[in-house]
Every structure is written in C-alpha cells, then in structure tokens.
C-alpha cells in the first residue's frame, strides 16, 4: 500500500500543478499549443546555395581567392539576413594590416550593430565603398574588402561545397532557437519563423544589447 500511496501523491502533485496553472491563466508546456520548431528551417533555398569558388568562414564571412593573389572577402547569406536585412556601415581601413579575429566589417540590422571578424591575416588592398550604407542583396557578388593574404593559409578551417551548405542550413536552425530564446515578442519573429516567410526587418530592434552580444558570440566568433 505504501507504493500506491507514494504513487498517488506523485500523480496528485502533477494534477494539482496543472490545475494551479489553469487558475493562473497559463498552460503547462506539455499541453501548450505545439509550434513546429524542428521540422523546418527559416531560410530561403537561395541563401543556402554557395558558389563553388567561394569558401566560408565560421564567422559568417566568405573568401574568394583570386589569381592576382588577392582575396575578396564579404559577408555570407546568413550574416546578410540573420536578424533582418543587413547594411554594411563600416569596413576595415584601406592599407591597414589586419589580423585574423580583428574586426573587418561592421553591419547593422536596423538600429543594432554587429561586428564581423577577419577570417585571415593580411593587408587591406581595397575597400568596396559602393556597399557602405546599402542593404546586401546577392551577398556572394558583393565583396567588401580585397586583402593581400597568403592563399596557402590553412584552408581546412574553412568550409566549401556541400559541407558549407549543410553547415549553413544548421546555422539557420540554430538561429531559430536563438531568436526564440532572445526575442521578447515571439509573435514578431513567429510570423516569419513558423509560417514560412522571411525574417522581419524589424526583428533586431526588439533585441536587447545582451541579445546582440550573444548573437555575436554564438554566430560571428571564429
């Protein structure tokens, strides 16, 4: 009978909790309306396709090594669209030596600014001033900086081809968890996240400075 008594107490507490939540006007997570979190991603298929001559850094910049010994560097499709349409507000200065991990671009999602880190060491040969202040469309056609760098630098740290596409897809899945965690208004993101639409350009404005710092740490660090 002791076993039945303990079991009855256990089940009673679970039932009482559900009733208490009901009185508080809340729903137990187990019985709340299901949101299809894991079946789909929030990306446009075009965002996932990456040109074959481009390699991707884990800090969401892309590199294209040219025959002239210069490397074109830009922001990838994820970086260009993660928290809404992004504009480049600043690039590293021309003629400057830049080391891997230093800030190479600053971009803004609405009123929030994020920093992208240089994936390689090098000298800034040229800056594409045409992209400053513009929203990025066709990210792999819009280079931001031409860098003199050693093309033989360890390419194993970068991703390309199918590996890069799979990684990008997973980054968008991770992003969904991130947005769900940090947006104070899930409904704002929800329209885009769960109903198959694109991310709202207003999304970033609802984020706190802490959330943006977390975004940089989770997605833009090398």
């Amino acid at each position: 009978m002791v076993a039945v008594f303990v079991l009855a107490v256990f089940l009673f507490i679970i039932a009482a909790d559900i009733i208490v939540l009901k009185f508080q006007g809340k729903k137990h997570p187990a019985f709340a309306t299901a949101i299809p979190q894991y079946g789909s991603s929030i990306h446009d298929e075009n965002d996932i396709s990456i040109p074959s001559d481009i390699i991707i850094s884990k800090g969401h910049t892309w590199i294209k090594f040219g025959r002239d010994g210069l490397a074109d560097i830009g922001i990838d499709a994820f970086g260009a669209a993660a928290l809404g349409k992004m504009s480049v507000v600043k690039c590293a200065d021309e003629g400057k030596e830049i080391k891997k991990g230093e800030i190479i671009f600053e971009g803004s999602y609405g009123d929030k600014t994020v920093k992208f880190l240089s994936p390689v060491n090098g000298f800034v040969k040229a800056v594409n001033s045409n992209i400053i202040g513009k929203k990025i469309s066709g990210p792999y056609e819009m280079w931001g900086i031409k860098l003199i760098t050693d093309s033989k630098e360890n390419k194993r740290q970068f991703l390309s081809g199918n590996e890069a596409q799979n990684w990008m897809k997973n980054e968008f899945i991770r992003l969904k968890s991130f947005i769900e965690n940090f947006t104070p208004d899930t409904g704002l993101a929800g329209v885009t996240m769960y109903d198959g639409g694109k991310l709202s350009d207003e999304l970033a404005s609802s984020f706190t400075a802490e959330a943006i710092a977390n975004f940089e740490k989770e997605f833009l660090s090398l």
Partner: protein
Amino acid sequence: MKINEILKPTFWKVVSVIIVTIGLVSTFYRFTRGLGATTNLHDMAPWGLWIGFDFLGVGLAAAGFTIAATVHIFHLHKYEPMVRPAILTAFIGYSIVVCLLVVDLGRPENFWHPLVMWNIHSVMFEITWCLICYTTVLILEFAPVVLEKFNLTAPIKYLRIISIPVVIAGVLFSTLHQSSFGSLYLIVPGKLHPLWYSSLLPVHFYISCIASGLSMIIFESFLIARAFPKDEGFHHTELKMNILSGASFAVLVALIAGFLLKSYDFINNGKISLLIKPSAETYLFYLEIITGTIVPISLLSFKKFREDKKWLYIISICVISGLILNRLNVSITGLIASSGVNYFPSFDEISITAMLVVLGVFAFRIVAKNFHLFEAAESHETVKERI
C-alpha cells in the same frame, strides 16, 4: 533577486513553506525522541518509506551518469544541453538519499563508521562506498559550473583535463551502486516475494534505472520549461523536442531490454503461475508492469508519440511511476508479505520525506537562477556532428 520577488506568495511557495515547517518539527522529534516514537518501523518491518525513497532517489538520479557518458564518452554532443541539469539532479538526488540515510540510522551520530570500519564482505559496505565515491564524482562534474560563476578559470582548466577519467569513474561507481541495490536483496530469497525476487535483481535494477533516469530528465525538462520561462529572463529553457525524442528512443530500448529480462526470469524460474494467483502483491505487480513497462513501450514504439510533447510528458510520468512502484514493491511490499505484519509510514516519516523533496526542488531552483545551468540550445559541436 529582489526581496519582494522572494516574498511574493504563490500557491507552491505557501505549500512548500508549510511542508518544510512541519518537516523540521518532525525532524526535531525524530532526533530527540528516537525512531520508535516517531516512526512505524519495528523489528518485523525495520526498513520502510525512507529506504524505499533511497532506492527511488538513486534510481531517478541515474540520468547523471547516463547523459554524461552519452556526451563525453560517446561524443553525442546533441545531448549536451541536458548534461548540467542531469548532473545537478543526480547530485541533489544523492544528497536527499544521504540525508534520509542519516535520519533513518538508529545511531545517526555514527554515520561515519563505514569510512573507517570496513566490512568488505558486506553489500552495505559496497553501497556506502559507491554512494560516497559517486557523490564526490558528481561534485567534480558540477564544480566547473560553480567555478565559472566566480571566474576561476585555472581550476576549471585542471578539471577539464581530468574530466574524461572522472566521467568514466562516475559510470563505474553508478553501475556498481545501482546494481548493488539489487544485490542487497539477493540475501533474502525466502523473505522477498518471488514476484520480485530474482538472481537477476542487480541487472533488473541497473536496466530499469537507465530507463527511468532518462525519463526523469525528460520529465524535468518539462518542469524546467514550466518553472523558468523566457518572460522571467531565462534562456535555453524551452523544450528541445529533437533531444527529448532521441532520449525517449533510448528509454524504449532500455524498457524492452528490461521486459525481455523479466520475461526470461519468469519463464526460466517457473514463476508464470504466480501471475494468476490473486493477491495484493500480484495486483501491485501488474500495476507496476503495465504502468511502467507495457504502456510506455506501446506508445514509444510509434514515432508520432515520441515526437509529440504531450505524449512524451505522459510517457515519462508512466516510466517514473513504474520505478516508484518497482522500488517500493521490492523494498516494502515484497518484504512485508513474508513478515506477516502491516506497515504504513507514520506522519513524521512522511513529513520528513516530503520536506527533503521540497528542499531538493528548492536547491535546484536556487542553482538554476544563479548559475549557468542551461547551456546554448545547440553548441557548435552539435552542428559539427550533424554535418
């Protein structure tokens, strides 16, 4: 945390304060008046609710070693967000067990005797030492969370170096500990009811703790999502259905293994006839098997139930209920039958047990609010693994 927030009364806070207050009074009586005056234990029924809860607490804490081994030894980093809550649950579970053991000892002031007075031929000796060693391992496994809070990076570095040996030691101690609870009952073949007595009891205990430990962590994920919502400033506490579904498949495998082992035991030892003998023990055995094994296996066999959070919650409750019934049936129901006496815990036994459970939940809440218990939903390792 603001003092107003702490003092703001809620239903569960009021209930908890009442339970803890009554429990403290009962604890005072137990230590001042003795076991005889405050419990319904006697020479014919020396082990009661507290020993049953020890078995239960250790069984439900099994997720600690299961998840730690899954992530750190088998490198299934998908389950990483579960590691810290699982280890904390195990640590709190074991702490409750230690407290209950001290309360249950006739001479609690002698609790330290097994540390220096070794009886290496006793199963109790093995149980005691596994309990001590595994609790130490859990402290080492959880220490980085505490050290992180105070930015003590140097000790974390050393703990990382020894992390794999520590996890392996944890798996070993846990395996020994879980199974030795079963071994304890091998010495009472004439006293434990044959429905539960088996030479395979250590294996039964081990397999069932894996299923129920994982179910406990699934159940706990729902409690975390319910208790630490995003609008109160918590992150990464939402239900991660992809992880929970994966864990539920492991529960299914463990339940099937346990059921096959039990079937083999019944067939091989000619115990089938016991199943049609009408008695309170038989009904309780049926309740245990149907609730904790047959219903969960039937539901978990379908992917749609494994991926549905409502059903996953219900299934986890079923498996935990099965463990509650099993451990209490082995430690109380199965033994009381042969002793010829009746036993039901006294008010003080119940109130002390309830108080320790409430304090355990309170401790979890304090740690969750003040330390980085919930890690990022998906770490970079997870993503790398998926690719």
